[in-house]
């Protein structure tokens, strides 16, 4: 049959199971947009291409399927960059399709020409420039395959306009994909499995460090069985949240810079760290030279380049986490660590006195209270998407997730502006889920234009703005490390309620804790997207905190004696 390049794009996407794309049209991608109308694809018109990339990312993380963003050449393509880098750092499978100027103009600085494959080289898993329509099917098939297999990641396909316009005799290529240099199907050797089992059985004070890889590999059940069988406590990275039930007795909570004190102390005092699907990011290790000094370390990892990158490990098991854990489980005998668990529980009890959740309500609105209340009123079952900053850490601490794929956040890149578009993408992936975007006043304004997208699509997400009038996390660093010199962190925001109303959406402001429940209920009951502007305590800080590069066991704690005074402050 005869097909244009533009039609081939959609023929391929439909065969990849794509039903929705997030994008923004323009000159160099016009042929593709024209052809799109004849295919069963829903297109979501974003307000900025960054939003398209984040939506595709949110869609991918909520569904496990590949998310697709589409943009034109030049500025359309460069606007995707932050979203691509975000997906790359968090190993999220997205395919970005960009139009490119006609191939004969490439290299001549044509109108809206940019070298997007060059620009995205270090932030994509792989990318392609297509200048021959005969390559298009192969390239698109490879793009989806590379994006979702192995350690997932973003793939960009840049398609010259003349390729989209060319007509060829076409049939879908069903041949197996030939990528001799790409072999994602690695597996550990039996000898290493045996050694790992021996190390686990010998451990007295083990800790499992569970990361995003648990979710990516779908290894939640295996992790659960491993923890139960061996009575090993589980600490999570930010993106590992949801990989192990928060309510489980072996759950420790989040580790790292803003991890709870007992979690970081447990890691520092452990004799075995079992790292599953995590990469020893500097935000979880702190000072490497003092990190878990007594622990032997086993690293379950799908990407060989992550092994021994930050932390030198005693044993690396390269391969699919789920399969590796299954092999371990087949060889493992039950063990108990009652004393170790009891010791950690004791540390946990000691920390509880500092926990703002345990303090009486003094009429002020604290972010931690708000987030904990949202957790309560959503029965802990919402799909929560956060932005980046203090509210992100408070959400990680106070919204307790028992189910996987219910917490989405920009971890590695730390992209402000991520939450709203990612939440929209997640809602498209899981329409039945109650989606909450928890954002700061700063980050929300970075991509607030996507409210229009939500309104146009009639899609419902609930937005909780944790509004403290500052770029709060930066302010906190200024408070701790820069002598309270608040350079460029006080922020005056528009009336967010009116912004919501201007879009025909529901908006409500909350000044006191007593108003939180009614506002959450109102948001839940409103048919469309609803926004709550929570005016929280302005100069609250996230505790505990390990200063960047500091020892993991040396945390700045919420001063226990000052807590009451602080919460009782006028």
């Amino acid at each position, binding site marked *: 049959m005869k097909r244009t390049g533009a039609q081939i794009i959609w023929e391929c996407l439909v065969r990849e199971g794509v039903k929705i794309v997030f994008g923004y049209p323009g000159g160099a991608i016009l042929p593709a947009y024209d052809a799109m109308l004849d295919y069963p694809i829903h297109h979501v018109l974003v307000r900025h291409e960054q939003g398209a990339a984040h939506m595709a990312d949110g869609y991918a993380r909520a569904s496990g399927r590949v998310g697709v963003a589409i943009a034109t050449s030049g500025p359309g393509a460069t606007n995707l960059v932050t979203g691509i880098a975000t997906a790359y750092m968090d190993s999220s499978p997205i395919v970005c399709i960009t139009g490119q100027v006609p191939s004969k103009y490439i290299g001549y600085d044509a109108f809206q020409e940019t070298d997007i494959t060059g620009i995205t080289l*270090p932030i994509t898993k792989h990318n392609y420039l297509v200048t021959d329509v005969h390559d298009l099917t192969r390239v698109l098939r490879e793009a989806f395959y*590379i994006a979702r297999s192995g350690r997932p990641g973003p793939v960009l396909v840049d398609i010259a306009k003349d390729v989209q316009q060319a007509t060829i005799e076409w049939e879908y290529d069903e041949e197996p994909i030939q990528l001799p*240099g790409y072999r994602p199907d690695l597996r550990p050797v039996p000898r290493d499995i045996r050694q790992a089992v021996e190390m686990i059985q010998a451990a007295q004070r083990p800790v499992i460090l569970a990361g995003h890889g648990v979710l990516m590999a779908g290894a939640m059940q295996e992790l659960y069985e491993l923890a139960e069988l061996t009575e090993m406590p589980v600490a999570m990275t930010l993106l590992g949240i949801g990989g192990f039930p928060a309510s489980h007795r072996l759950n420790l909570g989040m580790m790292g810079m803003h991890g709870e004190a007992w979690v970081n102390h447990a890691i520092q005092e452990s004799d075995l760290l079992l790292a599953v699907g995590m990469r020893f990011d500097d935000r979880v290790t702190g000072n490497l030279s003092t990190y878990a000094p007594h622990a032997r370390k086993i690293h379950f990892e799908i990407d*060989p*380049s992550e*092994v021994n990158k930050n932390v030198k490990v005693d044993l690396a098991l390269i391969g699919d986490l789920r399969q590796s854990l299954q092999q371990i489980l087949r060889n493992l005998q039950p063990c108990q660590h009652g004393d170790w668990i009891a010791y950690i529980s004791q540390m946990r009890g000691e920390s509880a006195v500092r926990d703002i959740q345990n303090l009486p309500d003094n009429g002020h609105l604290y972010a931690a209270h708000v987030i904990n209340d949202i957790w309560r009123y959503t029965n802990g079952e919402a799909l929560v998407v956060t932005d980046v900053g203090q509210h992100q850490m408070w959400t990680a601490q106070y919204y307790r997730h028992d189910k996987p794929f219910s917490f989405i956040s920009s971890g590695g890149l730390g992209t402000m502006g991520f939450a709203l578009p990612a939440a929209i993408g997640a809602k498209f992936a899981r329409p039945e889920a109650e989606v909450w975007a928890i954002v700061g006043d700063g980050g929300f304004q970075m991509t607030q234009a996507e409210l229009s997208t939500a309104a146009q699509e009639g899609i419902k997400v609930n937005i909780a703005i944790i509004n403290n009038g500052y770029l709060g996390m930066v302010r906190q660093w200024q408070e701790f490390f820069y002598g309270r010199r608040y350079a460029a962190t006080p922020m005056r925001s528009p009336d967010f309620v009116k912004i919501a109303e201007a879009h025909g959406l529901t908006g409500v402001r909350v000044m006191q804790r007593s108003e939180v429940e009614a506002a959450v209920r109102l948001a839940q009951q409103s048919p469309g997207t609803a926004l709550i502007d929570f005016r929280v305590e302005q100069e609250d800080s996230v505790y505990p905190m390990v200063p960047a590069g500091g020892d993991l066991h040396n945390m700045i704690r919420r001063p226990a004696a000052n807590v009451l005074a602080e919460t009782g402050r006028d």
Partner: protein
Amino acid sequence: MQKHTLIALVEDKPGVLNRVASLFRRRAFNIESLTVGHTEQPGISRMTIVVDSTQTDAERVVANLYKQVNVIQVADLSGQPMVSRDLALIKVNTPAERRSEIMQLVEVFRARIVDVGNDSMIVEITGAGDKIDGLVEVLRPFGILEMVRTGVVAMGRGTLVASEVGQNGNGYKS
């Protein structure tokens, strides 16, 4: 200085050299030399990469090279018996009265004179890096007007083939 000689077999496609060079820059890998050329197999190019491993962990370079979709095989030849060769063209200042002196030195190093002008000559030398360094040192007093070196290419001795070293050596692929 501890040197690692790595061989990467890569797909012969546009942009692959750029990907590898970009990788080294992005990861701050300290590369002493990088050469690319064709191989016995059409569609496959061979890169020889010399890493100063006192500054850059060769294992990280290997793992990150593997991560590239277009990189088919990586072999670390260090510790293996190998032949490594570099080629240099050296243009030497040659006053007529010292020409024979230079020609003798060239003879000693088994180098060749490939161009002779009124006041200069071009010397071609092939060999291991230290041999070339040696010739450069003895020619330097005459005045080196211009020099170019190709960078190192290397090959394992005997039946050892790069495409097999990678597979047996670290087991990352296949």
